[in-house]
Every structure is written in structure tokens, then in C-alpha cells.
């Protein structure tokens, strides 16, 4: 199709604001999916089928739209991942578009993550089509939220489309608006191929499937290609479009959106943001904006059963095939045994990985306290990165510690502004900007240490604002901080799993919380067990588990010898499963409980 009739758009929306339902209506109205084949949440269901190996992912769908003016347009709907940790992936999806549909629930208004993605789209110079969805809901307040969106985008409230993806009301008008407002691709058909990879995943049957848009030039099936950043040289075994099922094609023209299967076995060879060109005589300059995925949050992940270590290693290797941003290396902990130090894009990414490891590989895992990466300048002027408290040099060797900061955006009802500001300030936040979206809702921007967010900030924010506030954050450089390493010692023996790096002002509170928590979790032993928190050799908090005085069967007569023996055997088995820290026996559950909700010092 000629470029003038091509459109590429993404829908940016908060979860539950109706993106899937809108996709259904678009697929139906354009006849991409017949009414007979139509099922609710069509694309989501394809995702489930993909998990079971039935189909490949619909990261982009091509629809043919016959407009009232008699012309037929090709609309490519590009999917965007929905969370803060995947901001970079979102930015690449947006880079493959010429416009976005900003879809907002007419009963809820815009949320922080949507706002971030909106700003990304604005920065990318994309055409924005503001849409209020769910206008059929009794709780909808379209006038109010239209004002809010208009103020954000700088348009008139009357320009905000009002639709109900559920009933289909207003969706034809939206299609028309996409065709009219979103520009056609401006790439150079005569130039060598430059195709932007905006998504890729590993399929156990087909290998890596990369989704791309030919920005300049064109891509022919079977031709030799190069992933410019990764340096991967392969052949384009199969190229095609999703409509919504995969349809192989011979050529992807300038502006076309499609998929590429080329026998790659690992997504790190075909990363999001990479540029695909032809070889030998391909493009010399890649498309702008490629970035190596950069892990921000680190944690040790250990199998609860030590025997599961090889399974964990294989599981991480498998996940890595599909997740170029996951990094890991083996580490061992005196307390937790053998495991891996893993790096994640953020907390959600960490949760997703952990959940997949447990669910898909049937593992029981324990994670150490998450930490961020610190850049440390030593007194000898050398620098090093510390991603694990155990790597922290002696305080006397440290000249300066730089810690990563983020720009955190919180959208909250005005009623909670005070609460939110107090929370941020307690977490060393510095107010950067405050912007009233309307008389009832505020966007607040704080600069704050990432470490303060990764503990329980999000949960606290949700609970203190009755669930109304939303949060998003993006990296914002690193700054010098007064950070110290706090160790926790059991009977004088440091327990690596509990060591942490915290701001000096928070050290005492961390030490106090951990020692108190452990006092309740560690069973009484035959001797007093001191639990200490210390910075270097300076003890800042101390608790004692008093020696147990009584652990004996009161009665043991002829009638219950068997039962009592079994009782003792169970007790013995329990002891066998405990970790030995020096002379102290610590049940696995104590580690799990103590690490469950890392104290941020304010809770």
C-alpha cells in the first residue's frame, strides 16, 4: 500500500481503562476479525494461546479500514507494555508510531503511568488523539475529564473524543480521526533498509520473533540481514504481518509494520530498540534511541531447597532467552546457600521474574532485600559499582558514595497532597514540580533516591491514599549520599542476607526493626543469642533471644513411647532443616519472614 494510506498508532491507557475492548471494536469495525470469529479480549486471548504455543504474539495488528471517503487505509495498531519498569520498551513502541490514542476512563481520569507515556509521546512529536472511554457508565464525568485532558495536551475540550468501546459508540469517529490526524510515514523508500525492532520474544517453536517497522527502505524475505547494535548476522527466514493472525509476506515496504523470524535463539541477539538493515550494503547509521537495558534493582534469589539450585540456574537461562534486561550471576550466602544475584529493571520486573520462576518452574524461592546499584569512589580515587551490600568497602576506604535517583511522578486527588508530600519528604524526596490537572487532581513530581522507592513505597502510597494515587518514576541520575552499610549479627556472626545499605539517618531504624523482628523469629536456643545491628564495629541496636529453659516431654510412659518418639523425630527433622549460623540454628522461615517486607524505616 502506498505510504499516504498507511497509519501506525499505539493506544496508551492505564490498566482497566478499556484498551482491550477498544481493540476488539477496531478489529470488528474494520472487518479484520469477522463477527463470527469475534471473541471478547481477542488479542489477550491470542496472548494466552501464545503461552501455550498455539499462535504467535500480536505485538502489532494490521487492519484495513474503508473510510467514508471511499479510500482504504492500512492502520497498524502497535501494542505497548503497561508498566513503569518497561518505560524504555514503551518509548521504542512509540518510536514505531506516528500517532497515539490517549485512552482514559471517563470515570477515573488519567493515571500517573499514562501520563508518563503521554509525555513520552509528546516528546517523540507524535500526534495525540485524546479519547474518553466508558462514557456509558453512570459514574462517568466526561466534561470534567475532558477539561483535564485538554489542559494537558493543549487542545480544546471539544476536541476530546467521547466513546464507549463496549457499546461501540464513537468508535467510527475515532477511526476517522486516526486517518485524518495521524500523519503517514515519512521514511525514504529509496534508502537502505532501517527497521526498528519494537518488541521481540522467544517462541519455543519458532525461535525469536522480532516485531519491527521499516522506517526507511524495504525488507525482502530470505535476504541476509544485520541487527546493527547486537551485530547479529542472519537471514530473514520469514517475514509477515499480523492481521491478526500471522500472514507471511514477501516484502515489508517502507512504513510497514510486521514480524521477522530469522532463527535467532536468544532475544539478546535481537533486542528492542535495535535497527535491522540488509547486508552487505545496508545502512551505516542506525536509527536513534537505542539503549542497552540497564538493571536498576538487584536482589539475591535463592532456592529454599538447596537441591533446587541447578533447576533455578536452568530456569533463569530459559527466562533470559526472552528477557534481554534480566541479568544474573551466581552468588553464595552464608545464610541462604547458593543462589543468583539478579538485576532487574525495577520492582515489578523483579516480581514478574520471581513469580514466573516459581510458577513455571515449580520453585520455592527466597529473595534477599532488594538493593540498588551504588557507585563508590574510594580514597585512592578509583571507582567501583556495588550491587550487593557484601561488596561495600570498609567505611574508612570510601571517599564518596553516589546513589541512583529517580524522578517520581505521583498523580493524586488533592485531598491527599499533604499525605503524599509527607511520605516523599520522609524518603528524602525533593519537590520538583506540582501541577494541578484539575481542581481535584494534582500531578506531583519529586526527585528521590530509587532505594527509597523500591522498598514499600508503592504499597504505602496506595494504602495512605485509599488506592487513589498512582505512581511512576524514571531514572534521574546519581547523587552523593551519606550511605552506610548496616550488618546484622547473630551471636557475633554477621548474617549476609540481612546486611543492607541505607542512609545514615535511617540506619538506626533499620537496625532496630530487624533486630526486633529477628528476636521474634529466631527460636530460643540452649544459650542466650545476642542479635546486633552494627555499622562497621559500632553496634547501633541490640536484642537478645533468651536461652530456652524448658523443652522436655513432661510425660513418657509405655502407652505413648511411639507417639513421643515421632514427636522427637519431627523436632529433629525440623532442626536438620534449619540453617546453622555459627552456633545458632535459624529456621528457613525466619529468613523468609524477616525479608518479607523490608522496612523502609517509616512503616
Amino acid at each position: 500500500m502506498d505510504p499516504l494510506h498507511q497509519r501506525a498508532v499505539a493506544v496508551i491507557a492505564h490498566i482497566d481503562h478499556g484498551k482491550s475492548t477498544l481493540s476488539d471494536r477496531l478489529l470488528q469495525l474494520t472487518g479484520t476479525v469477522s463477527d463470527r470469529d469475534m471473541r471478547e479480549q481477542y488479542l489477550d486471548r491470542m496472548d494466552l494461546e501464545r503461552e501455550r504455543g498455539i499462535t504467535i504474539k500480536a505485538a502489532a495488528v494490521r487492519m484495513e479500514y474503508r473510510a467514508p471517503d471511499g479510500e482504504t487505509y492500512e492502520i497498524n495498531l502497535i501494542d505497548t507494555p503497561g508498566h513503569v519498569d518497561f518505560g524504555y520498551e514503551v518509548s521504542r513502541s512509540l518510536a514505531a508510531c506516528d500517532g497515539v490514542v490517549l485512552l482514559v476512563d471517563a470515570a477515573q481520569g488519567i493515571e500517573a503511568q499514562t501520563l508518563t507515556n503521554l509525555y513520552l509521546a509528546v516528546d517523540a512529536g507524535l500526534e495525540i488523539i485524546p479519547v474518553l472511554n466508558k462514557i456509558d457508565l453512570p459514574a462517568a464525568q466526561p466534561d470534567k475529564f475532558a477539561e483535564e485532558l485538554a489542559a494537558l495536551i493543549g487542545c480544546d475540550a471539544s476536541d476530546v473524543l467521547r466513546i464507549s468501546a463496549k457499546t461501540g459508540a464513537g468508535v467510527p469517529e475515532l477511526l476517522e480521526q486516526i486517518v485524518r490526524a495521524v500523519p503517514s510515514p515519512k521514511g525514504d523508500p529509496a534508502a537502505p533498509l532501517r527497521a526498528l525492532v519494537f518488541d521481540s520474544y522467544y517462541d519455543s517453536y519458532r525461535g525469536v520473533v522480532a516485531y519491527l517497522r521499516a522506517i526507511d527502505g524495504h525488507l525482502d524475505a530470505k535476504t541476509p540481514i544485520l541487527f546493527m547494535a547486537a551485530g547479529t548476522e542472519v537471514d530473514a527466514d520469514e517475514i509477515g504481518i499480523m492481521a491478526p493472525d500471522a500472514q507471511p509476506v514477501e516484502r515489508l515496504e517502507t512504513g510497514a509494520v510486521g514480524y521477522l523470524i530469522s532463527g535467532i535463539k536468544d532475544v539478546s541477539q535481537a533486542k528492542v530498540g535495535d535497527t535491522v538493515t540488509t547486508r552487505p550494503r545496508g545502512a551505516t547509521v542506525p536509527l536513534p534511541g537505542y539503549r542497552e537495558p540497564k538493571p536498576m534493582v538487584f536482589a539475591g534469589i535463592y532456592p529454599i531447597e538447596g537441591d533446587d539450585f541447578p533447576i533455578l540456574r536452568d530456569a533463569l537461562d530459559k527466562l533470559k532467552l526472552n528477557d534481554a534486561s534480566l541479568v544474573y550471576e551466581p552468588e553464595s550466602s552464608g545464610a541462604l546457600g547458593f543462589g543468583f544475584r539478579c538485576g532487574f529493571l525495577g520492582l515489578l520486573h523483579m516480581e514478574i521474574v520471581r513469580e514466573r520462576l516459581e510458577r513455571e518452574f515449580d520453585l520455592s524461592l527466597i529473595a534477599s532485600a532488594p538493593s540498588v546499584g551504588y557507585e563508590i569512589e574510594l580514597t585512592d580515587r578509583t571507582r567501583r559499582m556495588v550491587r550487593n551490600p557484601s561488596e561495600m568497602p570498609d567505611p574508612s576506604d570510601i571517599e564518596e558514595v553516589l546513589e541512583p535517583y529517580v524522578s517520581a511522578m505521583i498523580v493524586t486527588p488533592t485531598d491527599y497532597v499533604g499525605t503524599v508530600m509527607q511520605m516523599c519528604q520522609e524518603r528524602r524526596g525533593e519537590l520538583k514540580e506540582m501541577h494541578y490537572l484539575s481542581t481535584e487532581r494534582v500531578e506531583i513530581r519529586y526527585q528521590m533516591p530509587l532505594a527509597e522507592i523500591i522498598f514499600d513505597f508503592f504499597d504505602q502510597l496506595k494504602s495512605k491514599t485509599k488506592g487513589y494515587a498512582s505512581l511512576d518514576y524514571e531514572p534521574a541520575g546519581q547523587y552523593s549520599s551519606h550511605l552506610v552499610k548496616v550488618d546484622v549479627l547473630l551471636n557475633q556472626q554477621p548474617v549476609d542476607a540481612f546486611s543492607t545499605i541505607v542512609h545514615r539517618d535511617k540506619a538506626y531504624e533499620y537496625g532496630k526493626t530487624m533486630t526486633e523482628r529477628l528476636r521474634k523469629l529466631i527460636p530460643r536456643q540452649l544459650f542466650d543469642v545476642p542479635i546486633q545491628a552494627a555499622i562497621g564495629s559500632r553496634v547501633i541496636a541490640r536484642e537478645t533471644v533468651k536461652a530456652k529453659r524448658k523443652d522436655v516431654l513432661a510425660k513418657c510412659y509405655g502407652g505413648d513411647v511411639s507417639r513421643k518418639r515421632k514427636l522427637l523425630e519431627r523436632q529433629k527433622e525440623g532442626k536438620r532443616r534449619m540453617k546453622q549460623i555459627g552456633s545458632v540454628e535459624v529456621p528457613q522461615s525466619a529468613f523468609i519472614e524477616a525479608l518479607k517486607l523490608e522496612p523502609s524505616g517509616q512503616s
Partner: protein
Amino acid sequence: MTLVVPSELRSERWRAEPGFGVYVHIPFCLHRCHYCDFNTYESRGELHSSYVEALVASIERSPLESPPATSVFFGGGTPTLLTTAQLAEILNAVRRRFGLEADAEVTIEANPETVSQASFEGLLEAGFNRFSLGVQSLVPKVLTGLGRTHSGERALAAVAEARRAGATDVNADLIYGSVWESDDDWRRSLEGVIDAGVEHVSAYALTIEEGTPLATLVTTGRVADVDPDVQAERHRVACSLLEEAGFERYEVSNWSRPGRACSHNVLYWSAGDYAAFGAGAHGHLAGTRWWNLRLPRDFIAAIESGVEPRSGSETLSPAERAGEALVLGLRLVSGVELAAFEARFDGALAGRAAEIDALEGLGLLERADGWMRLTERATLVANDVSCRLL
């Protein structure tokens, strides 16, 4: 009667053969106590006569080959819910079937509510020579909490009645460390039974047993759980008051006047052999243990239809048997005699040498004069030691 006290435990006789005991279970009570997890059922007497018949029949039919009994123990439940004549009939069956050593100890458990001077006289007449009374406490609020329906006065009166009837071996069972009891209450109960002139005291830390009404009260938060520190302290008080009054502790929870230890129970702790009769009763013979059907009705029905009333059994491996014997033996203050134990449980101690050395190093075990025992410090944390020796 063979009365085994710490010094006498070392006698040649015990070393060579711990003896042979007969246990008889009477699974009936007037009222079930809140803490009790024994095999017993509240009874108004409807099953008593058929149960006695079944019991006698099962004793008579027992195929067990054994020496004459050195001890007999009627436990429950409340054996004294049966008539003296019924109890005499059962004891006679034991005597006929197994024979009794001339000095055999014959104990019967009794509830203070179900005895009188006359009944004690009758029991002595029938051949019972040791009475174990469920006193538990002398303090009303503690008795109420435990679900006991007799008063402290009745319990003391029962001791006096036994005494007047001519009993020379009376035990008082006590329970300490319930949440209803204060330090003072515990002293009062101890002093009360000491003053009553008993020869033997069994004092048990209250244990919340699964499935009991008390356990339900604790798990639902209506009654506080027992405090092990409080119980340890009460045990210390028991040691000190009883020793002051001339008792010696010879097992974790048992004290006696010199020469008045319960030989039947010592048999258990010596991993000895014993036959067992009645619903839910457990017997043991050379590493094989068996147990009977728990429900009185099932027990009776089995006997009536000529079937073994056995519900299960286990045969311990030599290693299990040795571990169990060691754990049981260490409950005794005297501990185990190393040479005799090693001879009886071939190499069991040599195989545990490293653990034993380690426990000695920790100050939990001590070896002296050819015996091995728990240190005083280890007595109340014996489970830690047991776990390492099993």
C-alpha cells in the same frame, strides 16, 4: 516388693533383666478433664461389665510367653470407676495367667471422687499395693480451670483414707504451670501433698495436647498458652520443696521417698517388656510394640467374636530400638549404665560417640562411674539431647 530408687537401679538384678510388667487399661471416666488426651470416655457404667468380661477373656487368652510379672499397673481413665470386685477379678486373671513375683508392685490409678476408706481396704485385700491419686492441684481456681470436678479437700481426704486403710505406697499426681495457677498456688499444692504424707509425687508441666478442649481454647485465644519459663521455674520450686521434705527426683517429672520409686514406670524407661490389656493399651516385647483398638465397644466386640483386639504394631530396627532406649533411659536421673547398655544394644553407644562427646562438651551429658546421664542443666531441655541421639 522391688522398689527401685536411683541407688538400687544399679543393682545387678535390674541390669540383667529389667523385669516384666502388665498394664491394664480402664478407659472410663466420670468426666473428661479439659487437658486430657488419654484414651478415655465419659461413662455412666453401661459398658463396665461387658468390658470387664472382655478384659478378663483377653488376659486369659494371651499367648505371651513371659516370666512372672514384677509389676502390674491399672491405668486409665479412672480404674476406680469399676467396683472393687471387678478390679479384683481382673487382677486375679493377671495373676492366674502370668503369675506375680512375691514382691511385685501392683498399682492402681484412682480419682479422689471415686474412692473411700472401704474401697481402699477392698483393693488392698485384692492385692493392689500402690495407689496413684489424681490430685493435680489443691487450689480451687486451678482445679476448675483444668476441668477437675473434685475439691482439694477431697483429694487430701482420699490420701488420708488410703493411709487409714493401710496403704504404704501412695502417689499424688500434680499438674503445674497452667495459666490459672500462681507461684503461690503451686507451693500450696506441693506443701499440701507433702503434708498429707504421700510416698511419691508425679508433677507434670501442663502440656497442651492437640485435640483437647484446652487446645481449642488456646488456639482460639480464649486461654493463654503455657509459658515454658514459668513452668521451668515451677519445676525448680518442686525440686527444692520436695527435696527439702526428703524426696528424691528419679525421673524428669517423678519424685519419691527413698526406695519408693514406681518400678512399673522404671520398666518403661528401661525399655523393658510389658504386656498390655484393654482398649488402646500398648505392649512391648523385645523391640516389637503393639496397640489395641481404641474404642471400648470395638475392643469388646473383637474379644466377643474371638478376634485379636490389636489395631497395630511396629517392629523397631535395632538402631531405632537403641535410640529409643537411650532417650527413655536418660529420663532417669541415674541415666544409663554404659557397659550394660552397650551389651544390650550392641554398639549403640559406639555409633553415637561423636554426638555423645559433643553433648558432653556442651555440658548437656555427663559420664561418671560407668553411667551416663543428663546434666542438671539439660534435664529441662532434654528434647535437644534426645533429638541428637535418636
